[in-house]
Every structure is written in C-alpha cells, then in structure tokens.
C-alpha cells in the first residue's frame, strides 16, 4: 500500500539537510575567496575552512551595503551568491516539491476514495526498537499515517515549499544562504516526525527537534545585536529563550507521558486509545482524576509549543529570526504542533472526561483575548502578527476544547484542525507579505525597518504585496465567505451551542467574540498604517493620491519584490480564500462526525453577530487611522491619563514579560547563586574544614618538637614513669591493693 511508504516524505527533507550541509554548503564555502587582510599570517588555519553551522565569513560587502558599516555583523552578505549556495536552494526546493506533490496525492486519493485508507490509518514500514528486550518494547521508533496526519502533512509540505521558494528572494546574498536552507529542511523533517508519530516517544522526539530547528533559525543571524530602543532582543537571546520556555512546557508533557506510561505500559497512540488492556479506558478505569491530571500535563507541552498563556513570551521574541522562518515555523506549522498534538491525543482527552477539555478551552480563550489586547498597541510590524498568531492559536484550542468537552464524537478534533488548516495559509501569507515589506524597505533605506510608524502608503510602491496582505487581513477578520470566516465562526458558534450543556462556555463565547472584533481592529490598524493612511486612495486603503503629499514616512523609494517573493504571496492568497471550502474535513478526520454545512452557517443569526463585530472592528480601525489619522490618535492617547495608562499596559504586554524577567533574574538565578555559594562554602567548606582541622592539629603537635635534647629526655623518662604508675595502679586494682604488689 502506497501509504505505508509515506516515510519517503518524512526522510526527504532529512536527505536535503544532509546533502546541503555536507555537499552544497561545503561547495559554497570552498568556492568563496579566502578572506584577505582579516587574518594575519600567524593564524594560517584561517576562518574559511568552516563547516556546518555556525558562521558566515566577514567578507567584503556588496556595493549597496557599504553605507551601513555599523551593522556588518547583523546580516553578513557575500558580493555574489556562489553556485554551491544556489544549488542548496534548488536541492531543498526540488525535494520539497516532490514531497509536496506526493503528499497532496495521498490526501486527495484518500479524500476521493474513502476506502483506500481507513480511519485507523496504517503504520509505515519504517520502524525500529531501542532494544530487542521485551521489557524495552514500548521504546519503539514507529510512524503512522492516518487522515489527521495527512491533513497536517499537506499543510507542512505546502507551506515549506512556498517558504523555500520565497526564501530565495528574501535571503538574497546572505552569507549563510546554504545554511539557511539546510535549517529549513531540518525543520521540515522534524515537523514531519511529529506528523507521522505513532507514539508519545516519537512525538516527543519531533517535539524537541522542532525546538532545535526553531532555536537554530531564530538565532540564524548569530552576531546580530539587540535593539533596546525598539524593545527587541538579540536573535541569540531570543533563540535561547524560545528553547528554554518550550522546555518548561515539555516538562509537563513528559510528566504526563510518564503517568500514562506507568499506568498502561505503552506509548502507542493506537494502544492507548483502543479498548485493549493497555488502553487508558482500561488502565485508568475508576481513576479519571489521575487521567485528567496526566492530560493536563500533556497539554502543558502544547501550551509551551503553541505559545499559550502563561508561556507565550517566547513567540514575539522569536520574530528576531528571518521572516520566512517566522512564517513557516512561528506562524503556520510548528506553533500549530500543539494543536495537532491535542488533536492526536483527542481520544485520551475524551476518556478523561470534560475537565481537561475545559482547561484547554479556557487557556485558549484567555490567550486569544490576551494576545489580541496586546496586539492593539504594538508598533512592530512583525510583532503584531506574532500576537495575532498567539491569539488565533488560542481559537484553535477553544475549538478543540469546546468540541471535546460536550460530545467528543460529534465533531471530534475537527473545529480546531479546520482553523489550523485555514490559519496556516493566511498567517503564512501575512508574514511573507510583511517580510516582503521589510526586505524592500531594507533595500530602500539600508536599514532594518520593522516599526510601522516608519512606513505608510506602501500600497503605491508594492501593490501585489499590499493586495495579498489585504486579502489575508480580511480572511483573519472573518470576512464572509473567506476561509477564516468558516473556521473561526465554527468555533465561536460551537462555544455558544455547547454552552447549553456547560454554562461556563458562555464566558468563552463572549471572549472569542470580543477577540474577533479586536482581531479585525488590529489587523486593519496594521494594514492602514503600513500600506495606506489618511488621505490615501481607495478610502485610505491605497497609496497616496496624485498631487497629494506622500504618505510614506520613511526614506528612499521602495519597490515591489521579485517574482520569487510575489509568487508565493499570490498562491497563498488564493489558498486563503478557498481553504475554507473543505466542508468535509470533520467527517474526514473523525468517523461519523457531523460536517459543517454552508446553509446552517449563513442562516444562523449568531454567525452574523460575529461578522458584525468584526466589521465594527474594521470600521473603528478605519475611523481612527484613516479619518482621524495616526498622529492625532497618538496625541489623544498621550493626553488622557486613563487611555495613556491602558496604552502602557498593553504596550508592555501587561508586564508579564517584565515579571518573567524579574523572576528569572532575581529568583531563579538567585537560587542558583545561593546553591553555588552553599556548595563552595558549606559542602566544600566542611571538606576543607576537616582537612584544615587535621592540618591544624599537626601544626599544633609540631610545637612539641623543640629540638632540645633535654626536653625529649623529659618526655621519654616522664613517659616511662607514667607507664610505671599506670601499670602499678592497674595491677593494684586487679590484684586488690597496692600491698599485694610486693
């Protein structure tokens, strides 16, 4: 069966990683001119014999970058891209294209011919155990493909392919061109490990590996500086933060895995969710509390990976990586892995009752609102999108939670996965469009401009970027008949429907509705401030009018991006519109699940309430930024104490980041320093103290060694005398009196 060979897709990106790292990247490095002047003769084994990760040589820069020598290290460039570097991209893209085609074939085949792959899916022929011993049987590396995996698979391969094509244009003459493509391949491989995982062990492996790829890609510009003025950390810092914060969630994840493993003795999803002796239903019979605890622990992993409250801090900082990375990893795929994992373990959550699902839903809803509120005031073009991602991921968890808490069989993981599916396209589009803006402004200004206050009216210079961004903005706002409309509305209305059973879901419903309005507002705020503005064409949505003052607030003249960048944008814009029309998704994922119906959605009054709120958001954004104008809004906010305080609050992310910073710096590092001091002064102090005591004793006794003959004689004869007396006394006691001695 062809599905059993889908490990070809899994290993394909690994192959391109290996080929690029050990092949084309070596070629790239070998074909570079030796660094001249930078190294003196004494260090003959210079810097150019580099391999693998790490580094881009400090070499002569292209002409167009000579003007900004101060940030040479930020983004090292080579004058001409070598063929080795170019082939790195070709290798990656070619292999990814093949994988993408194969995975779309697999998906369509199984959608059109329902018999070809059952709901149970099939194991892949690639598997091995950690050991032969029967006791180690659970430690198996094995992979599995089913409908859920296929859905995720096409998302991952498609976005990966488009991002790789896009990156050719975005990375230009970067010195780390080949390295970048190898990391992208490594990421895709890691993500596919999660997608194909057949047990908790493998999903945990993939979980950590995507963490690694994320770490490497966020820290791609290894020597780039922090920008404290814009509240931006250095990529190196952001990378470490991302990894460590993810690890916090992973601890919960592994504790959950341990509890399940202890009770059932297996990691396999199939065995756990089945009905046999190793299933959770059997092993946890009568102990659903423990199972709930286990599932909430497992959900912690998703909280970390999907940047939900309270572990959301790493994702905005992860924006320090190159923008294609933000699109691929930190928007479309990796951060959605948490959602995928919950969907994957959906039967286990279901077996634990509704509490775990309620936790999932509430965390999602709170995150959605928190991130949307924070996004309102951010001025960094990418950070708005980062918070938007966090917010949308919250929606997905709401979808999973509200669907599972009441009747897990009815919709299954469908609502959450549906939003994941549509969100992947429009959020990738938003990021890639943002990347296009940043890249083109970099050409125009020779600086990295991410602050949208330095943009404005860009629609005039880069119409394709602007239009595609606008499409995505409408989609994410839930504009009727675009993909986001269907997926988001399904979640909101499901929260409302299921609130009839669990009243607390009314709260979630209100939160999600509120978030929908906020989403529309901040997306259009970003769009108008960057691409349009007060006095622009098409009611402020376009660039400046003929003869009117220029809306663009930066320097230089931006241009539209090359086709490698605009092609993915256009393709994604189309996908963003049509992705919502896969109405059969729910029943494709879950047997006997109800599908959403077009008629139900459009005839339901609550749907239009959501749309109305979204329109209100858009209208308010238009009102503030087109009618009133950016500067005036700023003035009003600054002059009103209440508004100013609120503005500060959301601008500083409700001071959560500062709180974590304080916690790390003073509490955790403080404990570490106390432990270190304890170790060196108490534990080692005792050791040295004992040693010192012995040494001191020796020093003291040494004093008796006067060197004078007579003092020795006193000692000697005194000792003899003492011994005699002792003997006498002892004998006296044992023999009954001194007189008996004689």
């Amino acid at each position, binding site marked *: 069966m062809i599905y059993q060979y889908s490990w070809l897709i899994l290993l394909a990106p690994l192959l391109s990683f290996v080929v690029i790292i050990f092949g084309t990247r070596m070629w790239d490095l070998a074909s570079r001119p030796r660094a001249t002047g930078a190294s003196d003769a004494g260090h003959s084994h210079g810097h150019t014999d580099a391999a693998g990760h790490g580094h881009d040589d400090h070499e002569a820069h292209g002409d167009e970058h000579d003007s900004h020598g101060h940030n040479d290290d930020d983004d090292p460039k080579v004058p001409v891209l070598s063929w080795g570097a170019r082939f790195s991209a070709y290798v990656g893209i070619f292999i990814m294209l093949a994988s993408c085609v194969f995975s779309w074939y697999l998906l369509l085949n199984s959608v059109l011919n329902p018999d070809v792959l059952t709901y149970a899916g099939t194991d892949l022929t690639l598997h091995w155990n950690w050991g032969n011993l029967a006791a180690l049987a659970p430690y198996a590396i094995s992979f599995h493909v089913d409908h859920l995996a296929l859905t995720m698979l096409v998302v991952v391969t498609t976005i990966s392919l488009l991002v790789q094509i896009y990156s050719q244009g975005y990375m230009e003459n970067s010195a780390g061109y080949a390295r970048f493509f190898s990391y992208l391949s490594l990421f895709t491989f890691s993500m596919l490990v999660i997608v194909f995982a057949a047990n908790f062990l493998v999903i945990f492996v993939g979980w950590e590996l995507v963490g690694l790829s994320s770490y490497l890609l966020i820290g791609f510009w290894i020597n780039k500086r922090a920008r404290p003025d814009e509240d931006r950390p250095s990529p190196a810092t952001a990378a470490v933060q991302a990894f460590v914060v993810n690890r916090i969630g992973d601890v919960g994840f592994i504790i959950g895995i341990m509890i399940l493993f202890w009770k059932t003795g297996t990691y396999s999803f199939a065995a756990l969710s089945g009905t046999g002796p190793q299933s959770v239903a059997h092993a946890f019979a009568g102990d659903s509390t423990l199972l709930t605890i286990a599932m909430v622990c497992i959900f912690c992993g998703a909280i970390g990976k999907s940047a939900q409250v309270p572990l959301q801090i790493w994702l905005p900082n992860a924006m320090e990586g190159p923008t294609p990375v933000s699109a691929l990893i930190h928007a479309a795929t990796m951060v959605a892995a948490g959602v995928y994992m919950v969907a994957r373990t959906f039967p286990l959550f279901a077996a634990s009752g509704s509490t775990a699902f309620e936790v999932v839903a509430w965390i999602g809803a709170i995150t959605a609102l928190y991130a949307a509120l924070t996004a309102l005031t951010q001025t960094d073009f990418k950070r708005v999108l980062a918070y938007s991602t966090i917010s949308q991921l919250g929606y997905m968890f709401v979808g999973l939670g509200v669907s599972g808490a009441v009747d897990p069989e009815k919709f299954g993981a469908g609502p959450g996965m549906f939003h994941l599916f549509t969100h992947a396209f429009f959020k990738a589009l938003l990021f890639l469009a943002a990347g296009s803006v940043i890249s083109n402004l970099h050409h125009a200004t020779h600086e990295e401009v991410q602050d949208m206050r330095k943009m404005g009216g860009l629609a005039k210079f880069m119409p394709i970027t602007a239009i595609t961004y606008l499409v995505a903005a409408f989609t994410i706002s839930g504009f009727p008949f675009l993909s986001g409309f269907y997926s988001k509305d399904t979640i909101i209305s499901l929260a409302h429907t299921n609130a009839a059973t669990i009243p607390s879901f009314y709260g979630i419903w209100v939160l999600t509705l509120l978030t929908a309005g906020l989403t529309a507002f901040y997306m259009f705020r970003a769009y108008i401030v960057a691409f349009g503005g007060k006095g622009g064409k098409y009611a402020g949505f376009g660039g400046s009018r003929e003869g009117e003052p220029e809306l663009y607030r930066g320097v230089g003249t931006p241009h539209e991006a090359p086709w490698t960048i605009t092609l993915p944008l256009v393709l994604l814009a189309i996908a963003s519109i049509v992705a919502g029309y896969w109405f059969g998704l729910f029943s494709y994922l879950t047997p006997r699940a109800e599908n959403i119906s077009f008629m139900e959605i459009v005839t339901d009054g609550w749907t239009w309430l959501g749309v109305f709120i979204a329109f209100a958001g858009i209208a308010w954004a238009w009102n503030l930024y087109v009618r009133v104008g950016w500067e005036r809004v700023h003035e009003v906010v600054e002059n009103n104490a209440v508004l100013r305080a609120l503005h500060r609050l959301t601008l500083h992310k409700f001071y959560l980041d500062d709180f974590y910073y304080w916690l790390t710096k003073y509490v955790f590092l403080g404990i570490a320093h106390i432990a270190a001091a304890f170790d060196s002064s108490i534990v080692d102090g005792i050791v040295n103290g004992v040693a010192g005591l012995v040494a001191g004793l020796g020093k003291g006794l040494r004093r008796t060694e*006067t060197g004078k003959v007579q003092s020795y004689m006193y000692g000697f004869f005194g000792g003899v005398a003492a011994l005699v007396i002792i003997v006498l006394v002892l004998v006296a006691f044992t023999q009954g009196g001194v007189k008996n001695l004689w």
Partner: protein
Amino acid sequence: MSILELAHPTLNHFLVLGAVLFCIGLYGALAKRNAIAILMGIEVMLNAVNITLVAFSFYNTVKPFSTYLTGQIFAIFIITVAAAEAAVALAMIISIYRKRSTVDVGEINLMKW
C-alpha cells in the same frame, strides 16, 4: 647495719647502688646544660644498668649454668656500645662547638620542628 653485712653484700645492695647511680646519672642528664656533662650523666646511667645486670647475673641460682653469663656478656656489649656512642657524641659536640662556639644544649635546637 653491721660491717659484716657489708662484707657479704646481697643482691639488694647492688640493686640499690644501681638505682642510686641511675638517678644521679638521670639528674645529670636532665639538669645539666653542658653537653659534655649530659654525656657523662648518660654514661653513669649506662654503668648503673651494667651493675644491675652483672649483679643479677651473679646472684642467679635458678637458671642453668650456660645462662649464668648472659648478664655479664650484655654488660660488655653495653660498654662497647657506650664507647662507640661516646665517640660519636663527642665528635658531634666538637663539631657543634666549632660551628656555634657553645656546648649549651639550651641553644642547640637544630632539629626544631
């Protein structure tokens, strides 16, 4: 105590003599500051022991004849060793005197800690 008794001394007489001589020698060795005087004290002590040994040997009537002379042979050994010791000690004292112009043991503490 009659003179007759002195003419026929017993073992105890010799032991007392040995003890007295030993104490005199000990006093000399401990109290004198002159290294040569100390040496003399040590010689006196050694000879006190010799007297005791010979006396025991002489008055022994229990052991068989072959062991009669053990104490006396020991005494000869001690005399020999004492001579050697005296030679070495005097040589050391002279050597020290040449270096430090003193034979006062209070000032000789070369082997101090």
